[in-house]
């Protein structure tokens, strides 16, 4: 009989110990949580200091994260949502699901950061990535008139897709529908998220893919392969600043705050450049990794103010749908 009691006691002990470890749940986009993304390294680094269990959950691409959150509402298990960008922060804040933060940091962002709901963790320029040996277009018009095949992402589900929509809109304004109409025959497919698009490009399904100026760094640093390049566009390049926010419904608010603080610390920011392949929002002490100096630095950066996006997004999306469905 004794061994049974002992077994029972050990089970009770184990569940008690388990219950003591608080769980911090973070919704992130898919490529963040994959084994080659920042997720695993961030998890190890944060769990060293938090005495908690950090759980990343991949929930589609960035823009789909917001829909997921609306779907969950206040019931959400998530404590933190990581992977929205400034094009979505206004819409996200409007849901009323997010809490304020008090994180302060010495940001290395191309703009001044004043948002009190969201904390930026990295940034980059959108760009079309191509094989370095092919001639690259120099602007949207030359891309549209070429035979080049491109893969883009859906602006309704993906932050790069939304970025491209606003890139064209902010560069061309009322002329944007005409640009899309001309681009239509270049588009092989429109994917749900960045991962699918980039995978298809690497598999040879297209000549160019919408990604970032920092994407070639991945091939250069991780694979010692200099065959990929980002095309420099004369219109300028649209910026993306990726952010995370704490949910008001979180049952671990202190841990969530701790995570946001951790996010702008050296431990987190040092992981970003060579796993998420973006510029860190706070330059780590060790600086940027070798190879990043070879990347294209656009002369002109485009970015719409976060609060102007919702109205413009609606207009641009209707134009995009209209042009691409013919």
């Amino acid at each position, binding site marked *: 009989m004794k061994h049974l009691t002992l077994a029972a006691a050990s089970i009770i002990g184990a569940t008690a110990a388990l219950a003591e470890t608080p769980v911090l749940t973070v*919704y992130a986009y*898919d*490529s963040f949580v*994959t084994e080659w993304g920042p997720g695993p390294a961030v998890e190890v680094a944060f769990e060293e200091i938090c005495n908690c269990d950090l759980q990343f*959950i*991949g*929930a*589609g691409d960035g*823009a*789909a994260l917001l*829909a*997921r959150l*609306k*779907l*969950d509402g206040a*019931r959400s298990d998530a404590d933190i949502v990581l992977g929205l960008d400034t094009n979505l922060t206004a819409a996200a804040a409007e849901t009323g699901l997010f809490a304020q933060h008090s994180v302060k940091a010495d940001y290395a962002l191309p703009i001044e950061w004043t948002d009190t709901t969201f904390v930026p963790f990295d940034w980059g320029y959108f760009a079309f990535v191509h094989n370095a040996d092919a001639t690259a277009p120099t602007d949207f018009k030359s891309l549209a008139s070429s035979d080049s095949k491109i893969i883009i992402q*859906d602006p*309704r*589900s993906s932050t790069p897709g939304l970025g491209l929509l606003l890139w064209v809109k902010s560069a061309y304004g009322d002329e944007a529908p005409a640009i899309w109409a001309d681009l*239509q025959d270049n*588009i*092989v*497919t*429109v*994917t*749900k*998220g960045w*991962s*699918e698009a*980039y*995978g*298809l490009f*690497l*598999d*040879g*399904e297209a000549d160019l893919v919408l990604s970032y100026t920092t994407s070639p760094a991945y091939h250069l640093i991780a694979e010692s392969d200099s065959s990929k390049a980002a095309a420099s566009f004369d219109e300028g390049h649209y910026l993306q600043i990726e952010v995370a926010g704490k949910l008001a419904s979180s049952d671990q608010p202190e841990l969530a705050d701790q995570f946001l603080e951790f996010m702008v610390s050296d431990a987190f920011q040092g992981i970003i450049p060579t796993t998420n392949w973006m510029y860190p929002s706070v330059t780590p002490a060790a600086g940027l990794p070798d190879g990043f100096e070879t990347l294209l630095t656009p002369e002109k950066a485009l970015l719409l103010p976060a609060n102007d996006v919702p109205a413009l997004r609606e207009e641009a999306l*209707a134009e*995009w*749908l*209209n042009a*691409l*469905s*013919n």
Partner: protein
Amino acid sequence: MAQRALQLSKWTGPIALFAVVGPILAALIAVGATAEGKLYLGPGDWAAIRFTLVQSFLSAAFSVALAIPAARALARRRFRGRSALITLMGAPFILPVIVAVFGLLTVFGRAGWVSSILGAVGLEPVSIYGLHGVVIAHVFFNLPLAVRLILQGWNDIPAERFRTAALLDFGPNAVFRIIEWPMLRKAVPGAFALIFAICLTSFAVALTLGGGPRATTIELAIYQAFRFDFDLGRAALLSIYQLGIAGCAAAIALLLIPLSFAEGGLNRPVQRWDTTPAWLDYVWLGLASAFLIVPLSAIVLSGLAGLPDVPISVWHSATASLYVAFISVVVLMILVLPLAAWMGSRKRSGIEAASLLGLAASPLMIGTGWFILINPVIDPQTVALPVTAFVNALMALPFAIRMLAPAVRSAIADHGQLAQSLNLPHVVIWRYVLWPRLRAPLGFSLGLAAALSVGDLGVIALFADPDRATLPLQMYRLMGAYRVDAAAGAALILLALAFTLFLLFDRWGRANADS
């Protein structure tokens, strides 16, 4: 003494009917209330409606056009492996859509086999995304169906006609014009309309091979309204359009389709004397079977290579899928037995109405409706698996009724009067009169339902949260994350599950046949 006809399941039948129609109507009402009478559609929505119609039309046209020569060849030729080929034509029915898409990508994708061959001779690779990819996948699924429907037409031509034609010295052209053409004029519109109706509610194919506003079906647009914008009103509105269009198409299909779908007889070709260019028949058969076999082989080959890369999450989701299939089969059995007995023993069977409902109801419409109903009460994600299972059972139900109700009808025609005059209790009638006759079609229906359910990628995509996934959804996620090897392994596991489940139930159904 005039006796009233034997009526079975007088109470349980209508109750089961209510259990089927109730939830569907509830979904429809929820959808209607949410759409709030706004019938305005945006440009993207119109494009989705247009694309849905165009791809369905092309899919049906190609399936039928390719099926005619293949069915003709099958009807005219006897060769070794003929019955194996006809059996193989049944494979796409139980093949999970996502698995088939994976096989087609391996063969027709830009980096696939066909493109490599084209590249070797200096031609441009083909791309499978967009309209033609969707149509290729639909033809893959529906060509075998079209062949079987049209072959049935050929087999229904009495052998005496061909005999007479031979006596009159008809050439192949005359045989075609006088004997075969009138049959085709009856069989082809039905096959076309049925495939058209089936393709209207296509979701998984469009999700994986479509893309962008140009290649979005209504079903996919419902999903996008849900998952991209969380716009329930628009999802509901699109659902109403879906129901209207699919309902009309299904009604037309049922009017056009020939009523007799007798089992058997497919293996006994009529003797023919007009079979001149034999090679042409074999070319058609070779092409049609290659179109089926090559993607299937691709799944098996790449799957075996990918099995070591399969992550543990795939096995978790396989368990979830088995759970869904199990619930689905149980629900189907509980619903279909009283319904089939009730319908089969009534004067007017209502089988056609059931079929209509099955073809017209879109899983995502029902899913949207239930989501709207469930959401205020509990977290819909916690019931993702049971809801998926129930919708799958509903989708399999019309087919199962079509299989079982005629069996009930003939059993009652043969033994009903005797049973009634002996005043046998219904339990005894069920046990000794119905059960032996229902077991085979029931096993077949349950097998089909289990296979469909284990491989379904539909409602689960609306309800699932990142933690919960069925195997098809997990496989789709692996494909999206570009883990091709793991996805290939998952595809093979899913294929094996679907076929094993089907065979298990089907064999269980037939096990009784000898005793």
